[in-house]
């Protein structure tokens, strides 16, 4: 008998069928992976299991008994634990306080953090999750924060653990360590639900795999019979190219040159230092690294959005260090920022207004200083058609488009007029496989037109698939530059963790 079984789960939101008659179960001692694109309904299904949503139809059986789970508290009381993708931690509290939060204290109204701390240390040594209970959470590294999340669930005696994309922010070595812990948890008879879209991880960890697409179960497999390609096909519903074809291109002069760069982060700490890099016309240079190692600050300093305190940046031989963003754009920089709704577009502006954010100075769209709306419409429609942006109209606010379509729109805007340098930060993060495939193709096409492309990504598959050269960034410096044709993921992973290649 499965420890947990969801039968015929259906959940409707206004205008969307998020889950359509979904069956899903977990046996004690196994890892059952839930695979699917963004919006396929994985999160909805798990939120129903954890009591955050109520299903419209269907039932949940725990150890064979139909059970109503109407809140996270109920889920916890049935020994269900959830490790959320975005950590559910209070940064200003200590590890022990985060674990104790919401639990009855052995001292009534007063806290019993010493008791909690002892138990945290115990659990930690048992499962290889060592932590200092008195440490403040904001001071912890990402991998340690995840340990806090797992300890929180174990402390509440979770038998069924839901892990929502737990590897998204980890280095390959941290992933190995996490998998070690997870396997140990299953040998103790716990059941795990693993949510991910990293196919090689899914194949490495799972006992069973269930694929969701548009709210429905579209396939089931075991790692023995599945391949990355077959899983991707089940997710998308058609054949998918996981890495783009890249014709050889003759690389030319360096188009972007960065010399001994130093940039400070938001907290006044050095984020980038002694950073040297060249990107040549006609190549894609991928920057690999765990998030928070200075990538964002690097991108912002190149785009003119963050002060350079030392060193220089030049584009096509022109020094642009600490120039205004508009001057840098005029020299030939195109910039796709990592936050597509935060920095890349204005969410409440329409599709055409967002294109105009860049083009509004262009004489083609002005008529005696006023907008020529006919010309603008024609131009925007052209871009939308060219990049296959799915939008009802040009007057639709970008907020209501899907992530992949917003990203395509930004790319369309930025690639206009063949830029000298394209800086793309996390170009496909959180977009569906189809859109990611398309964006990759466009980046490769742009490379053939002689643009120097700098791609910053936390997704190693993307970096390996796209790049002509890979620069690994760690604590604000280049740890080394490798050739993706000869380098291994393990090598790059070690460099991402700060281990020097020699």
């Amino acid at each position, binding site marked *: 008998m499965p420890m947990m079984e969801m039968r015929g789960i259906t959940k409707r939101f206004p205008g969307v069928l998020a889950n359509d008659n979904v069956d899903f179960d977990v046996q004690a001692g196994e890892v059952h992976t839930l695979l699917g694109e963004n919006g396929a309904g994985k999160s909805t299904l798990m*939120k129903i299991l954890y009591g*955050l*949503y109520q299903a419209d139809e269907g039932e949940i059986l725990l150890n064979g008994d139909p059970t109503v789970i109407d*809140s*996270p*508290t109920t889920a*916890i009381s049935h020994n269900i634990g*959830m490790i*959320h993708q975005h*950590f*559910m*931690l*209070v*940064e*200003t*509290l200590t590890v022990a*306080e*985060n674990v*104790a*939060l*919401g*639990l009855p*204290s052995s001292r009534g*109204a*007063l*806290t019993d953090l010493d008791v909690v701390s002892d138990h945290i240390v115990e659990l930690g040594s048992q499962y290889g999750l060592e932590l200092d209970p008195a440490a403040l959470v904001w001071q912890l590294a990402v991998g340690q924060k995840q340990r806090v999340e797992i300890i*929180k669930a174990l402390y509440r005696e979770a038998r069924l653990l839901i892990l929502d994309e737990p590897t998204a922010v980890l280095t390959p070595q941290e992933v190995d360590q996490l998998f070690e812990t997870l396997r140990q948890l299953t040998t103790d008879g716990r059941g795990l639900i693993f949510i991910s879209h990293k196919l090689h991880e899914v194949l490495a960890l799972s006992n069973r795999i269930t694929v969701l697409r548009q709210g429905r179960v579209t396939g089931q497999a075991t790692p023995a019979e599945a391949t990355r390609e077959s899983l991707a096909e089940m997710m998308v519903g058609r054949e998918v190219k996981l890495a783009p074809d890249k014709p050889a291109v003759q690389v030319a002069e360096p188009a972007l040159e960065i010399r001994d760069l130093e940039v400070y982060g938001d907290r006044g700490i050095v984020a980038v230092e002694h950073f040297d890099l060249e990107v040549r016309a006609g190549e894609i240079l991928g920057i690999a690294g765990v998030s928070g190692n200075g990538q964002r600050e690097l991108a912002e300093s190149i785009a003119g959005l963050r002060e350079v305190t030392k060193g220089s940046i030049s584009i096509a031989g022109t020094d642009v260090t600490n120039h205004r963003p508009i001057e840098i754009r005029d020299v030939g920089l195109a910039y796709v920022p990592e936050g597509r709704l935060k920095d890349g577009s204005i969410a409440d502006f329409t599709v055409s207004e967002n294109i105009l954010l860049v083009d509004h100075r262009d004489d083609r769209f002005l008529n005696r200083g006023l907008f020529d709306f006919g010309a603008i419409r024609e131009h925007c429609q052209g871009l939308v058609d060219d990049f296959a942006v799915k939008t009802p109209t040009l007057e639709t606010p970008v907020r209501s488009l899907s992530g992949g379509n917003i990203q395509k729109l930004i790319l369309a805007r930025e690639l206009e007029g063949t830029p000298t340098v394209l800086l793309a930060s996390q170009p496909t993060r959180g977009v569906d496989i189809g859109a990611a495939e398309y964006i990759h193709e466009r980046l490769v096409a742009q490379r053939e037109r002689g643009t120097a492309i700098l791609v910053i990504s936390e997704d190693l598959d993307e970096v390996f698939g796209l790049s002509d050269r890979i620069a690994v960034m760690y604590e604000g410096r280049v740890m080394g530059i490798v050739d993706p044709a000869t380098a291994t993921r393990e090598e790059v992973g070690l460099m991402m963790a700060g281990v020097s290649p020699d």
Partner: protein
Amino acid sequence: MSEFFTEAVLIATIASGIRFGVPLLLAGLGEAYGQRSGVLNLGVDGVMLLGAFGGYYTVLKSDNVWLGIAVGLAIGLVLGVISAFITVTLKAEQGISGIGIFLFGLGMSDLLFQRLVGTPRPIDTFPRLEIPLLRDIPWIGEMLFRQNVVVYLAFLAIPLSMFVVNRTTFGMKIRAVGENPEAADSLGVSVAKVRYGTMLIGGTLAGVAGAALAIDLGIFQQNITNAQGFIAIALVYFGAWRPFGVMLGALLYGFVNATVIQWKTLGIIPDSWSDIAAMAPAVITILALVVVATRFRAPSALTKPFERGE
């Protein structure tokens, strides 16, 4: 100026500075609870005004100052429930709903005063409580230990609040809810209950602060608080959302206020300047706030209504 720097005058100024800081201390402390849990309540001054009138009127009719404080407390409690209902249950924009409470308190307290009292009549004030032995310590005794009872109680509320915030499960929930309500919610902590709790504490303390102010002055007049409720909100930022910091801010305000009054009495400030001098406590407090406050970070969820799921 030399007449100000005499032993007797300085001691008297400090003693009354401590006393002047009390309403601000209570109101600021209450506001700190709310803000620590993520709720900005701009209505403090309105609650103080109604508490002040309620306290004044009760003492006028009953000659019992403690009954006056109790009425101020009750009024604060009721307004705390109303504020919590608006901001937590209805999830209203916090920057606006509080202003509504303030305007209601400002108008209503004056209307009630005009209707029920008309011409101001003085009332009994708090009895002085001199602490045996401690009262005889040179200088310190006169500054600290010959105050009225409310002063002692107000300052006792500081260590009590520090204990509540740092050592109880309720305090831990307050800090968690103000910083990351989603995380607290995912662990079964009721964000709404915690915020109702802090809003009730905040309202109660603001009501008591108002009553204490009116009874201490022994009088009521229109807008008697002189925007002290707003200064109290500023003090929470000044005090970095910590009870002890709020106390330091309240004392600063009290001392500046006492000094200005003393200087007026001594003729150091000419009469023609008295209106400008009256602004000094507020201006100096705000300036100090600007210098200090930028170094601390506000609770992340401050002013954000909580809604589950996304």
